[in-house]
């Protein structure tokens, strides 16, 4: 089993120098804008800024290409599914009908449908650079500190920190168990039949889960002994102070959110309609 995951890449870039809290706030703000607006102009601004920020972070495309390939395939399948299920959704939303290509049944291709699907694809796509960069440019241990900074209870922030800390451990655990089971003669290759493979998966997954449950007891006892959670606040080794660039990044994202909200209120609808 190959666990392909995005992880932190250390580089001297301005994006890396932003505090984790800033990146988290910006990511949340961009997600909110991406989810709330349907305005093509705002979405295009987001796309361009997103690509610029990606460039600025000195992240290479091939370092994240496995994720990008997956997302592009997902977006393509999603678009096909939307067209199959609702080929006239665009007409419904924009209120007009300009037929581009006359296809049988209800499948006539309209400009409205193409425009609607462009927008929905953009909505999914514009958040990707920020989510990617958030993962790739934020040091895991700083992440917990930044969650606490934006007001999340530090106990919950610590839960996130434990998750990040134990993902590699559990991966290693998985491989160890898989190798031990193979040494005992369990066939993990793809040659085995479906039923057998389910049973084999169980021979790995069950020890993995049960050993992790034991680990929960050990760790919580250790934390109890170190008096975790007895005080209202705690400090973080990896917390960074805010600088000008942090305020700039948050200010810019907030301004964009306000702009998109203002446009929606002006129009009386969150859809930007070029057909009227």
């Amino acid at each position, binding site marked *: 089993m190959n666990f392909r995951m995005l992880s932190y890449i250390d580089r001297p870039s301005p994006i890396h120098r932003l505090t984790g809290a800033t990146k988290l706030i910006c990511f949340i703000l961009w997600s909110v804008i991406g989810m709330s607006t349907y305005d093509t102009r705002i979405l295009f601004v987001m796309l361009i800024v997103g690509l610029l920020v990606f460039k600025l972070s000195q992240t290479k495309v091939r370092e*994240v290409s496995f994720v990008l390939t997956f997302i592009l395939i997902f977006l393509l399948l999603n678009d096909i599914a939307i067209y199959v299920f609702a080929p006239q959704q665009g007409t419904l939303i924009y209120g007009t009908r300009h037929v581009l290509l006359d296809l049988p049944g209800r499948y006539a291709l309209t400009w409205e449908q193409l425009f609607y699907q462009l927008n929905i694809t953009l909505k999914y796509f514009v958040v990707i650079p920020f989510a*990617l960069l958030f993962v790739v440019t934020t040091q895991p241990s700083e992440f917990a500190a930044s969650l606490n900074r934006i007001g999340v209870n530090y106990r919950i922030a610590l*839960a996130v920190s434990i*998750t*990040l800390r134990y993902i590699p451990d559990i991966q290693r655990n998985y491989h160890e168990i898989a190798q031990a089971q193979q040494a005992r003669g369990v066939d993990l290759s793809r040659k085995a039949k479906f039923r057998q493979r389910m049973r084999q998966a169980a021979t790995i997954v069950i020890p993995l889960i049960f050993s992790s449950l034991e680990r929960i007891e050990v760790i919580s006892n250790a934390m109890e002994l170190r008096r975790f959670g007895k005080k209202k606040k705690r400090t973080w080794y990896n917390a960074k102070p805010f600088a000008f660039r942090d305020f700039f990044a948050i200010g810019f994202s907030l301004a964009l959110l306000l702009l998109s909200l203002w446009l929606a209120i002006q129009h009386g609808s969150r*859809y930007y309609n070029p057909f009227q």
Partner: protein
Amino acid sequence: MKNWLSIRTIVAAGIGAAIFIILRYISIPVGFIPNTTVQLSYIFLALIAVIYGPVAGGLIGLIGHSLGDAFQYGSVWWSWVIVSTLVGIGFGLVSGRLKISEGDFNWKSIALFNIAQVITQAIGWFLIAPVLDIVIYGEPANKVFVQGFTAGILDIVTVGIFGTLLIWIYAQTRTRTGSLKKEA
């Protein structure tokens, strides 16, 4: 504070979310409907929520699904993250009525657990997920309902069979209260 967020709950949420994320990689795609798979991670979520309660279950759904999405796909589908959180809480709500940690998982408990999981997952996948997809992304209604129903039915069936089995296996490893007898 101490009652609803004990150290054990925090650690269970943290480690549980890590396992949840790893288990997402071991899933069987349905294929013809995008972003829909039989997920082993929900089977595990059922077990851990039943042991550690609704707070741990909800946190694992929230942390596990959002971080998992970010690491695996580089973006987060918030509508489904919310549903995972609710499903985790729902699984955990019956934990107080079951006595899994004391090794007791009889037919009554099995029925109770399955009623709870069917109800929460039905509300989550058949109702909340599609509605959020429509509200947030403006997706066509019939498409998201088909997606939600497929994901929901698959999850209800897998949790019903393998989740029950996993909890039963776990209960077998516990020492029953009153299992010791004084020798005559």
